[in-house]
C-alpha cells in the first residue's frame, strides 16, 4: 500500500556512493514508509543495485546518511528486522548444502552464538519454505535446483529471520516465468503480512500488480518517484545482459586494491 503517513522505515538523505573513487550515486533522497512495496527500476548501470547495497550497509557512503527504523545505519543492531536477498549466484558454494540448511542460515540474525536451534527457529524455517513453495525440496541440494528455485531459496532464507523490511536485488533476473509467478506469490504473502519491501528490478513482469511505488534511477540519480509506470516509460528499448555491471574499469596487479587504484589520483 502507498503509505504517505506511516512511520519511515528507510530514510536515506543525500546518499552518495563512490566505487573505486568514481562517484556512482549522487545526492539521492529516499524515504520508504512501513508497509510500502517499492520497486527500484532503471537501466543497467543506473545505480539501482548500488543504492540498495548502500541502504543495507554493504557500500560505504562518502556523503549523506541512512537511517533504518529511525536508527543510523552504523548503530543499527536489530539486524533481525531486515532481510536481504542478494543477486542470485551465491546460493551454491564449493560444498553441497541442502535447501533447508541455506534457509536455516537466515535464522542467524536471531540466534546467539552457541545456542542450538529451538522450536521457534524450526517453525520459522518451515514457514519460510512453505511461503516460497519449496517444502517438498527441503532435503535437496541447492546446486541441483534451477535458477528460479535457487532464487526462491534465497528469499526463504531472508524470510526465515522474520524481518519487517526486505531488500531484494534483482530477484526476477534470469528467472523463468513459472518461477517468477511463484516468486510474486511469495512476495504478495509477505506484503499482506505487513512487510515493507524494497525491490530492485529491471523488469517487473508478474510483480507489476504488487508494486505501489516506483523509483526510477538514471545515471546515479533518482529520476522519478511515484506511482508505477508502464514498462515503456522506464526504458523503451534495451538489450539483456549477463552478469553484473562493472562500474570501475580496471587492470589489476597482485597487491592492487580498489582504493589504491592509481587512476584515482588523476581525477
Amino acid at each position, binding site marked *: 500500500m502507498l503509505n504517505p503517513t506511516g512511520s519511515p522505515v528507510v530514510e536515506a538523505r543525500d546518499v552518495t556512493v563512490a566505487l573505486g573513487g568514481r562517484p556512482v550515486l549522487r545526492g539521492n533522497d529516499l524515504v520508504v514508509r512501513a508497509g510500502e512495496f517499492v520497486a527500484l527500476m532503471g537501466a543497467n548501470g543506473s545505480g539501482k543495485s548500488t543504492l540498495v547495497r548502500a541502504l543495507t550497509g554493504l557500500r560505504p557512503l562518502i556523503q549523506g546518511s541512512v537511517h533504518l527504523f529511525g536508527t543510523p545505519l552504523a548503530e543499527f543492531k536489530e539486524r533481525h528486522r531486515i532481510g536481504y536477498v*542478494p543477486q542470485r549466484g*551465491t546460493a551454491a*558454494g564449493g*560444498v553441497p548444502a*541442502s535447501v533447508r540448511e541455506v534457509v536455516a542460515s537466515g*535464522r542467524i540474525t536471531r540466534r546467539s*552464538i552457541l545456542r542450538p536451534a529451538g522450536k521457534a527457529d524450526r517453525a520459522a524455517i518451515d514457514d519460510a519454505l512453505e511461503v516460497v513453495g519449496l517444502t517438498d525440496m527441503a532435503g535437496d541440494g541447492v546446486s541441483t535446483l534451477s535458477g528460479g528455485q535457487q532464487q526462491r531459496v534465497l528469499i526463504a532464507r531472508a524470510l526465515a*529471520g522474520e524481518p519487517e523490511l526486505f531488500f531484494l536485488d534483482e530477484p526476477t533476473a534470469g528467472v523463468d516465468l513459472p518461477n517468477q509467478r511463484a516468486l510474486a506469490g511469495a512476495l504478495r504473502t509477505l506484503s499482506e503480512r505487513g512487510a515493507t519491501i524494497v525491490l530492485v528490478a529491471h523488469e517487473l513482469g508478474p510483480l507489476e500488480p504488487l508494486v505501489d511505488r516506483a523509483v526510477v534511477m538514471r545515471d546515479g540519480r533518482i529520476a522519478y518517484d511515484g506511482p508505477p509506470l508502464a514498462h515503456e516509460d522506464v526504458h523503451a528499448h534495451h538489450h539483456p545482459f549477463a552478469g553484473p555491471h562493472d562500474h570501475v574499469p580496471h587492470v589489476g*596487479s597482485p597487491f*592492487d586494491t580498489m582504493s589504491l587504484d592509481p587512476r584515482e589520483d588523476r581525477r
Partner: protein
Amino acid sequence: MSIAELLDLLGRDFMQRALLAALLTGLAAPAIGTFIVQRRLALMGDGIGHVAVTGVALGLLTGASPTWTAVVVAILGAVLIEVIRERGHTNGDVALALLFYGGLAGGVLITGLAGDGAAGLQVYLFGSVTSISPSEVWYTAGLALVVLTLTLGLLPQLFAVASDPEFARVAGLRVRAYNLLVAVLAAVSVTVAMRTVGLLLVSALMVVPVATSQQLARSFRSTLLWAMALGGVAAIGGLVVAAWLSARATVAPGPSIVLLALTMFAATWPVGVWVRRRRRIAEPFPALGADAPGPHEVEEHPHEHGEACGHPAVQHGDHVDYVHGGHRHAAHGEHYDEH
C-alpha cells in the same frame, strides 16, 4: 611383518601416541577443510603448509620448539593470505603463490643455516611417527580440540559466512573476523597435522576427505561429519600401513595417509557420478500448464510403458512421462502423447 608383530608394534608407547595424534589430526583437518573447500580456497592449506616450513626452520635455528614457532608463523601466514584475498581484487592467486614459494625457500635456507640440512626438515615435511614426544602429543591433542570445538560450535555462523558473505554482513555478522578465524584455525590444524602427515601433504587431509564425502552427501552438515570420519579412518589406516611397511623400508606416514585418502576418493567418485546422473534423470519436468504447446499423439507404439520397460519414468506435473529415445511419452487413454 606378521599380524602378531604388527599388533606388538601398535601396542608400543610411541605408536599409541602417534595413533592418537593421527586420529585427532584426521578429525580436525577435514572439519576446518570443509569451510575452506566451501569458500573455494582448497589450496589455502597447501599455502599455509609452505609458510609453516619457515616456522619450523626458525625453531630449528633458535632451538625453540618447532611446533610453536610453526604455529606462530603459520598463523601469521594464514592471516596474510586472508588479507591479500580480501583486499586484492584481482590476481590474488599470484600474490598467494609469492607467499608460498617465499615460505618454502626461506624454510630450506634457514634450516641450512641451522646446520641441520634437509634431513632435519624431512621429519616435518612428510611426517614421522617415531619422533613424536609425549609432550608434543599433548600439544597436538589440545590444538586439535580447540579447532574441533570452535569449528563445530560456530557451525551456523561459519556456514552463513562461508556460503554468502554479503548476506552474512547484512545479517550483522562480523564477516572479516569469522574469515580470519577460519584462516587461523586452518593454520593451527596445519601445525597439528605437521607431525603425522607432514607440511607438504597436510592440505590433502583438509581437502581429499571433503571431496570424498561430498560425492554422496547432500547437505553441508553430513559432508562435514563424513569428511571427519573419513579423515580419521585415513589417518589411522595410513599410519598402520606405514608401520606395517616399516619392517622392509623406511616409509613416512604422510604419503601412506594421503594415498589411502585418495583411494577412498577414487572408490566413491564413480558412485557419486552414478548417483548424480540418476538424480538428474529423475528430476521432474516443469509443469508449464497452458503455456506449453499442445501434446500430439504418438502414432504407433511397440510396447506398453511401465516399471519393467526400462525407460526412465520422470514426474511431469501431475503425471509421469517415460523418456524413450529422446521423446517424452505420457499415457493418454489407449495411446501415448508426446510431451
